[in-house]
């Protein structure tokens, strides 16, 4: 099959895009589980990145995430994706409570000339594993989300990108005076993904 590489260590643009969009799919599922956006019973455990990862069983959420990661993969191959943000909002008030920011730096040479890079698959897996662990442990410092929450996914793309009608223009959904925590990054040598979570300060702390 075209996108996965047979030799371990050569990364092509396509392979890298597949890795990044797959990572986002799993990260999004992990965030939804850990932050309690969807009930825990609706998740099932699978083995990925050497860790037990949780994936949602809810058909609607599953297809939502599949459709969107497919589009992200396309944009990544074109080198047009700058950032992906998963926003968690309160269902009742629509206020943004958390913002999981994944910024992407693309190696322009790989996009324009189609060169491939070398990096050990294992190394990339380890880096992703570290990020997944950090997401899981983030519940130790993130404020409790007591109320019913909903999520949205925003994409920051270049201006000249072709946008299917399933994506619409949006405001950035920022948080006022957020607390920010920078997590680990991973690098496929073609795409470098940085993770950052910003959240609304717990009012309790302000005293």
């Amino acid at each position, binding site marked *: 099959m075209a996108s996965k590489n047979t030799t371990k260590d050569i990364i092509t643009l396509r392979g890298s895009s597949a890795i990044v969009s797959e990572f986002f799919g799993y990260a999004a599922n992990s965030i939804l589980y850990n932050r309690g956006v969807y009930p825990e019973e609706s998740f099932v455990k699978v083995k990925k990145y050497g860790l037990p990862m949780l994936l949602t069983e809810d058909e609607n959420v599953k297809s939502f995430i599949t459709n969107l990661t497919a589009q992200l993969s396309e944009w990544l191959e074109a080198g047009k994706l700058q950032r992906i943000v998963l926003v968690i909002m309160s269902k009742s008030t629509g206020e943004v409570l958390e913002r999981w920011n994944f910024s992407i730096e693309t190696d322009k040479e790989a996009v324009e000339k189609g060169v491939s890079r070398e990096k050990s698959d294992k190394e990339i897996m380890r880096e992703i594993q570290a990020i997944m662990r950090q997401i899981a442990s983030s519940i130790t410092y993130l404020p409790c989300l007591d109320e019913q929450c909903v999520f949205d996914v925003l*994409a920051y793309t270049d201006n000249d990108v072709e946008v299917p009608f399933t994506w619409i223009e949006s405001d950035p959904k920022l948080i006022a005076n957020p607390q920010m925590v920078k997590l680990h990054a991973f690098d496929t040598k073609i795409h470098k993904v940085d993770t950052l979570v910003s959240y609304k300060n717990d009012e309790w702390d302000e005293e």
Partner: protein
Amino acid sequence: MRRSDMNGYSFNRLPSPRSQYDILPGDRFIPNRSLMDISRAQTLLSDKPVQRSPDSTFNEEYRKWVEENLTLGSDGKPFRMLVFRGTPKSGRTSVPPVDEFAKEEVYRKREEDLKLRKRIQQLPKSPDKCLDAPNLIDNFYINPIDWGKNNILAVALGSEVYLWNADNNKIQKLMEIDDGSDYPTSVAWSKGAKMIAVGFQSSIIQLWDAQTSKLIRTLKGHKRRVGCLAWNDRFLTSGGFDGLIINHDARARENSTSTQGHSSEVCGLKWSGTGKLLASGDNNNVIKLWEASNMRSDRVVHRLKGHCAAVKALAWCPHQYNLLASGGGTTDWCIKMWDSNTGKCIQSIDTTSQVCALEWNRHHNEILSGHGYIKNQLSLWTYPSMSKVADIVEHTSRILWLSQSPDGLTVVSAGADQVLRFWKVFQPADARTTEGESLFSLKRFHIR
């Protein structure tokens, strides 16, 4: 520390010391000071807050203009902000009170009627262009037309293959087969339209370089006519009368894997948008879904049964990656929608006519189907309601093939009457105005 017994979510384990400690310490982390804007924090702490009265000289319009034109990301690059509104996320929408519901129903019906009328007005009354296609073979089981990304339409007429350039209307003959008994039965442009594959009645497949009109390679493997071709990046998949599905690697010599996919002729072959799944329809009314990496005949991912006639028309939805549409032939007449994740039939519509081809609209939620007896019409349907928008009747005998232009606005229909008709049937995506609003209206779908 990173052995398989480690539960990623247990917080009680201390990181094991020294020897295993590498640059990535696992789930513990130290906040990164690079994020803190120390100078700003200092200012906020020490300076007295300054009251700023709204500057009345600031023109609202000017401010908007500045925002629009000077929005740059933190790295200085201009960007667009997009939010995904594809499929509604969950069934957990709240139930509105009853009479509000009824009012909403009436309003929605009126709105839908208006939309329908507007859409019908936009449909072409006659073809944008007509091209004569003499010697076009009237055979349900072949696929002689394909519109490539280079905007060139390849057509197999009799024993020859022609290339028609949609930009400048020039026609060029690609090749002609001299053997009197053989003729091309399928054509397919590669993804980047650099190569074109031609399958023949005699079971061979030829790969041609379109720009130089040179034969690159001849591929063998089938025992009978090659009726279907489908490209997946650099792999060419072919389906034949013998029921075999063969994956050829176009770049390497003598590199192909063959599967006895079906017990009867393979009529339809389509790779999904993501290139992960292959759908193949056969003459025994069955559709099979295969995974790219695992094409052994006992490793079918799903068997989609339900049609009662040959399945030639197959089309993957461009905006919902697990949705496959299929059309049944004579006596079946149905268009069926399948979920490729579960293998279940989600919807089935009786169109009262043989379905020979399907094309999804890339810019809106619509699907176009080509039919045979009696009306030989093109039918346009909205998805997901699958209500018919209109019929376009002009062909004098059955439509056998449909192909879409690379910009997704024109569809060419061809059939037994040997005329290629080009229809500007699909409208371009609107720039975030009424169309986008009503399809995915935020007031109807909660942000879920």
